[in-house]
């Protein structure tokens, strides 16, 4: 499992980095989306992988070893919402910049 997840993070990162290097804004938005998947998975992995142990506890005495680590999950939950907000903002900025500059190049002007 660990190896597959690590490879998945790697592939997502590589595709994301390639895309954020591209000159067109839409590519950059997609690249950031892929990068945020990679980062979220990475943060979750920092709590180590557990299956079938969601951090929904019983009401009695709690044995922490039985549950997945809730802290990375809380972090990722925040990150998901924030990355939604940044994606939305970026998308709108690129639309506005396209309207203002007439191009979808990240620098606001084509290089050739």
């Amino acid at each position, binding site marked *: *499992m*660990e*190896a*597959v997840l690590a*490879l*998945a993070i*790697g*592939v*997502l*990162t*590589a*595709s*994301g*980095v*390639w895309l954020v*290097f591209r*000159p*067109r*804004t*839409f590519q950059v938005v*997609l*690249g950031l*989306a892929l990068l945020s*998947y*990679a980062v979220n*998975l*990475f943060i*979750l*992995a920092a709590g*180590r*992988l*557990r299956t079938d142990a*969601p*951090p*929904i*506890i019983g009401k009695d005495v*709690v044995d*922490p070893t039985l549950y*997945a*680590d*809730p*802290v990375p*999950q*809380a972090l*990722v939950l*925040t990150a*998901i*919402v924030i990355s939604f*907000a940044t*994606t939305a903002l970026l*998308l*709108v900025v*690129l*639309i*506005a910049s*396209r*309207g203002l500059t007439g*191009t*979808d190049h990240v*620098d606001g002007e084509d290089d050739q």
Partner: protein
Amino acid sequence: MSDARLLILVLALPFLGSILAAFLPTRARNAASFMAGLIGLIASALLLSFYSTLATGQTVRHVAPWLPSLGLDFTLRLSGFTWLFALLVLGIGTLVVLYARYYMSEEDPVPRFFSFLLAFMGSMLGVVLSGNLIQIVFFWEMTSLFSFLLIGYWHHNQSARDGARIALIVTCLGGVCLLVGMLLLGHIAGSYDLDVVLGRGDIVRAHALYLPMLILILIGAFTKSAQFPFQFWLPHAMSAPTPVSAYLHSATMVKAGIFLLILLWPVLAGTQIWYLIVVTIGLATLLVGAWSAIFQHDLKGLLAYSTISHLGLITLLLGLGSPLGLVAAIFHTVNHATFKASLFMAAGIIDHETGTRDLRKLSGLMKFMPITATLAMVAAAAMAGVPLLNGFLSKEMFLAEALESQSGTLLDWALPILATLASMFSVLYSIRFIHQTFFGPPPVDLPHTPHEAPHWMRLPIEILVLACLVVGIIPTLTIGPLLQIAVRSVLGDRTPDYSLAIWHGFNMPLLMSVIALVGGVLLYRRFGGRLNAMTNSPFIGRLKGRRTFETVLAALIDGASALHRMVSTKRLQVQLRILIVVTLAAGSIGFLTYGYSVGNGPTIMLDPIFAVLWILGGASAIGAAVQAKFHRLAALAMVGVAGLSTCISFIWLSAPDLGLTQLLVESITLVLMLLGLRWLPQRLPEFWPGGRTPFNVRLRRGGDILIAVAAGLGAAAIAYAMMTRPEPEGISRFFLEQAYHGGGGTNVVNVILVDFRSFDTLGEITVLAIVALTVFSLLRRFRPAAESVELPVQQKVQNAFDAGREDREHGDTAAHYLLVPRVIMEWMFPIILTCALYFLIRGHDLPGGGFAGGVTASIAILLLYMASGTRSVEARLNIQPVRWISVGLMFAVLTGMAAWLAGYPLLSTYFSYLELPLIGDMPVASALLFDIGVFSVVVGTTALILIALAHQSIRTPRAPKPEKAPDKIPDMEGDT
């Protein structure tokens, strides 16, 4: 006896007044000045109430711990000396307010002026009352800032803007030096508390870092107090309104440096190097200022240079390092403030009533304004050091000290001669000021016919001149006790015996005074007539302080931009490449130093389905990367597949909350992107000449692939190394154990978000709200590019079909588009909303919560928009996202603040269980209320963004000609 806490009030009053004044209407001249004057009076009265305490030699302190671990406390401290100085700041400030009421024109935005003036008064009081080194620097910078605003008050005037800029740059440069100096001083003394530092003078003076610290602090003080070679900013600051000059450039701002030197005198003074630097600089300033003042043609310019010269005199006195020198310095600071403020005000009246300040044009004003003339004459006599006036007393002390000084250097014999010379110059320019303005033939060609100023405008001058006289004639009864308190608070046991008598018998200082007076008169008789014809100060006219300053500044700016061009680029792609390559390099250092190894912690057996999932997910990610340029829709779909794989992984790996939220957010993001796609330009494959991709393009792409692969490998390697090692003991145990008993919820992730770490969540929803508003305002003004405005092909075909048939109306086909799914989608609305509420309520115990609920609710709204179209939804349903956001934020904040009522810190939660029939035990935690706030903000944010984007499609395109009626600014609620 007064409470130390009253000091907070003294300090806060001017700032409160400043804020109030800023909100007054532009023409409220009387209200603003009345309030400012009242504040000055109240603060002065409060300050006076400390007299009895301070008279016993005590120091009043009020300490409010702020960052005690860093030695940073908010400390207010009042000693005899700071009391006297604060009184000066407030007293002259109040008089200036009265004066400014009559000086400022009705056309000027006067409340703004008073707002700045009060803020400056507060900052100056801050410098004076601070008992912590860093706090002093903080208020010091504020005085620079507000003096900038005050000097540049007539900002339509180029010279005002230039003067303000020069003053700001010079004093802020000094401010930076001062900050470093103060940090060093605090480091040497072991504390930033002023009283502690004052007690450790011996340690400080013996320390190895004494010299750099001293130089830095002196640069700070010298720039502020316009000492040579930084004196050039002061004459340029004369473009300020005269009340500003009367206040800042006589009594306060320029005295801040002097104040600091006196304050730190017991710690810093007394070494040979102190003597050499401070005496030399003071002497140079004294002479340069006095000499230049003689040749000024502008009344205020003359006064500015005279101020520079008097500041030099005080600096020189402090440099001598003798207790008597300090007494004379404090005394002269007060005296100079009184006579110079009144002279500036008199110059302002002359300017106001005649329309010019040019000495060459002014003449014979005695007949037109006898009272102002008399007042100015007395004040100028005080400046020249004529007996029976306050200036005479302190100048006498100065001359005596100049004689006394013994350092074993050339300065010993030069000092008395140069001091007499400077006094002679002072007499000379004082006579010139008076004689050319008030005597001689009646003036010709003045812009206005001169007449006496209104009585209330003269009153401040009358009070100040009266002070000059009273102090000059009966010093022991007036200034004596105050001076004694001030001196004692600085010197303590070293307080010398001094006498404030007018007559000390025939002695050397008196002889020097007489020489200066007689010499000055003779020089004026001999050369006075020629001064008007001179355009430059002889000898030192070559010292172009301003030109040097501008040259240095220009060189700095050019150098910075050249450096920027050399090492940086405007191109974002290049910057990003550099950033990621550097990150990669930084990451590799760890691997290269310590090697890479896989851990041996417990791992989970691979489930083949998981592998298949990620073969799919990984392939889509790569596919998206390849297709994003030409096939946007396909790339978007593939990103979606990668997102779904992520989502399934979350659920697989015991994070149901994440899976749920990710799934919901994924849907919203997809719709968002689809809405955005329409506004992007069409992209066709490049055609390179010769059919081959150019080499540089291939090189760039190859490089990018290399970096991307390296980044991916690095991320995978780190992730794998991390996951195969056992998890160290973190803080999770605490959360798991406390979630139910401390937070009343069994879903630990949710409890962390809305209870343990709810402050973070509060910050996060604030970010969401800001993003939503930014999106909204960006799109408000947005007009799509021309080629995107056209109707899509399908709609054109449909409309053509409608137009071709007689039985069909325009838009019928589009209206019946996907009728069945549409009805189902509309019916789904209440169901999805219920689901959203369910997510919200159960969130504390089971997967769900405010975020998930909020996103679900906005999906319901979104489906409705998709099904029925923007116009038809908004005809029936009035969603006001901005209200949802504001109500949500308020809900969250108020819930958090409710904890204060129970005496707990912000955002503490309360919970219990409620028995409900049918539903059973329902947890009622205040965290649920907080979560409702989160829910509301999320609904508002997503709805606002999506609706704003959706509205772009129904916008009317920009009117082709701007001269047509201004196009309606569409807003969320109205534009349907």
